[in-house]
């Protein structure tokens, strides 16, 4: 086994409980989204008043691309069950652990004193973290498809239609992982990388909320372009997919930039003994 594969395998082993728990939650939330949609569809059938109220509420939940289709209904619910939150927690946890976390607990010495380049080490961290993210999205995707079949939803979403929002959420997680990895690459303690990653993510979420609110849009609309949440649009990815490519491309670009800059920092930095 190559050093790269050994390190990826070690990372997957080390995170298996966290990954398992998050993936289980993903599966549950994917299933819950379909179940809630089924109940919602039955509810709106009851009378016109319900229908009007529900449409307004669901449009609010699903954003401007919401078209009241079953697919849009199911994907819109991912925002409120905490699907993105799980992805972000994984991204920040893995990004901050990659360098400063290993350095802090003293295990970086084990790997970096062996004949392994810093690029190989960093890539093993990136690949294992993104593999975990991929696995989560796969579980979310499969749970949605299975739940649709289980409940016998009439207007059943296509596999591709559900896959696109999964890819969009993956890209969001990857972008957050990218910049958290960057902070991790030059720090010696994990908490600071984790704090910086979280702070930027939370600030981005608040900035995006302000920038897209009708009351502030005109003055603060530019804030939208400073956050990764500008590219987060799972409902749009599911129903229209016009912005799907640019959104995923931009988020993956943030991820790639984070990784490249992280490598440049990591390559040139000292690796002191843990203190």
């Amino acid at each position, binding site marked *: *086994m*190559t*050093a790269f*594969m*050994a*390190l990826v395998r*070690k990372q997957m*082993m*080390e995170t298996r409980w966290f990954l398992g728990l998050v993936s289980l939650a993903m599966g549950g939330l994917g299933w819950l989204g379909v179940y809630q949609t089924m109940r919602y569809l039955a509810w709106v059938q009851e009378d016109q008043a319900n229908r009007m109220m529900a449409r307004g509420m669901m449009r609010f939940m699903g954003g401007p691309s919401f078209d009241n289709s079953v697919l849009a209904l199911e994907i819109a619910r991912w925002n409120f069950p905490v699907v993105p939150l799980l992805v972000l927690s994984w991204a920040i946890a893995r990004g901050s652990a990659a360098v400063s976390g290993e350095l802090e*607990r*003293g*295990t970086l*010495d*084990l*790997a*970096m*004193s*062996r*004949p*392994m*380049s810093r690029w190989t080490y960093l890539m093993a961290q990136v690949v294992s973290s993104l593999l975990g993210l991929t696995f989560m999205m796969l579980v979310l995707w499969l749970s949605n498809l299975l739940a649709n079949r289980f409940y016998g939803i009439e207007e059943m979403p296509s596999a591709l239609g559900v896959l696109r929002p999964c890819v969009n959420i993956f890209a969001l997680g990857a972008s957050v992982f990218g910049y958290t990895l960057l902070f991790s690459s030059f720090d010696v303690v994990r908490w600071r990388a984790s704090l910086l990653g979280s702070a930027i993510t939370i600030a981005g979420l608040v900035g995006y909320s302000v920038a897209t609110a009708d009351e502030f849009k005109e003055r603060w609309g530019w804030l939208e372009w400073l956050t990764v949440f500008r590219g987060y649009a799972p409902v749009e990815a599911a129903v229209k997919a016009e912005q799907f490519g640019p959104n995923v491309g931009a988020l993956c670009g943030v991820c790639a930039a984070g990784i490249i800059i992280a490598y440049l920092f990591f390559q*040139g*930095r*000292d*690796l*002191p*003994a*843990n203190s």
Partner: protein
Amino acid sequence: MIETFGLSKHYGRVAALSDLTVSISKGEVFGFLGPNGSGKTTTIRCLIGMLRPTAGRANVAGHDCWRDGLAVRRVVSYLPGELRLYGYMSGFSMLEFLDSLRGGGSFERSVAIAERMLGLDLKRKVRTYSTGMKQKLALAQAFADPVEVLILDEPTSALDPSARHQVLELVQQAKGHGQTVIFSGHVLSEVEAVSDRVGIMRKGRLMHLEDMHLRRNLRMVLVRFEGAPPIDFPPQLDVIIRDRREGNVLLLEHRGAAAPLLSHLGTLPVLDLAIGTEDLRTLYDRFHGPDVDDDTFADPAKPDENAQGPALIHQEFAGK
């Protein structure tokens, strides 16, 4: 095999390592002594490419330690002083993982050393190991690695006496196989037992290089004279006057054959004579003993590889 040229590492105003120039030959066991914070680990981390020198450079097997760190780590196996292993792995998995990071080939040997020599149960999880057992596991891997250089940072710090003895044997075996060993430690008797040369560090500076083979031929001669003792001795006797004491007593440091010195002393008015040796502790205490402070080494002399051995430092002391 290992060369440093003016190697320095500063953290802001703090000099962790200053102007270290030393050369270690292939097959040599180099003992590295000094208290905590004296620069031993900083030197070692510069050698394996984990720290970028502020000034100077270091080469291992012809490779620059910072710019070509990967090539250096191919020929070096390093045992960290502060060891952290993955607790969820078994001893077997840990050795397999460490072996894989080197591309394989040493797993069977590391298992054999761990189980047969060091008596480890490799089926147990590492988290159930004591500190000493973890150290044994890492030592098994270090000694199994097919490398030219072994860097052991305090390798016996957590070991019981019998395991310490086995580690010293493994160091001797490594030397027998032509491996170069840097043995950093605080137990002077261990360093003394295995080292060909010893370097003593103080506050980031290499204060002294001692050839242990020459030192093993060293004898201390205490002579009481009837009347005033001689001012000096013929140079061919290789005698250094270490101390002049009250009562016409001289403490002499002597190497080489005893007969010429005894013959010479026979020509002098000697009242009494005692011959003994000096352990590494005495040498170490000259740099780190209770009577030593920063003023003692305000202007530390650079060690000279060609004039290594006690003579250089002893002459300095004689002049103080």
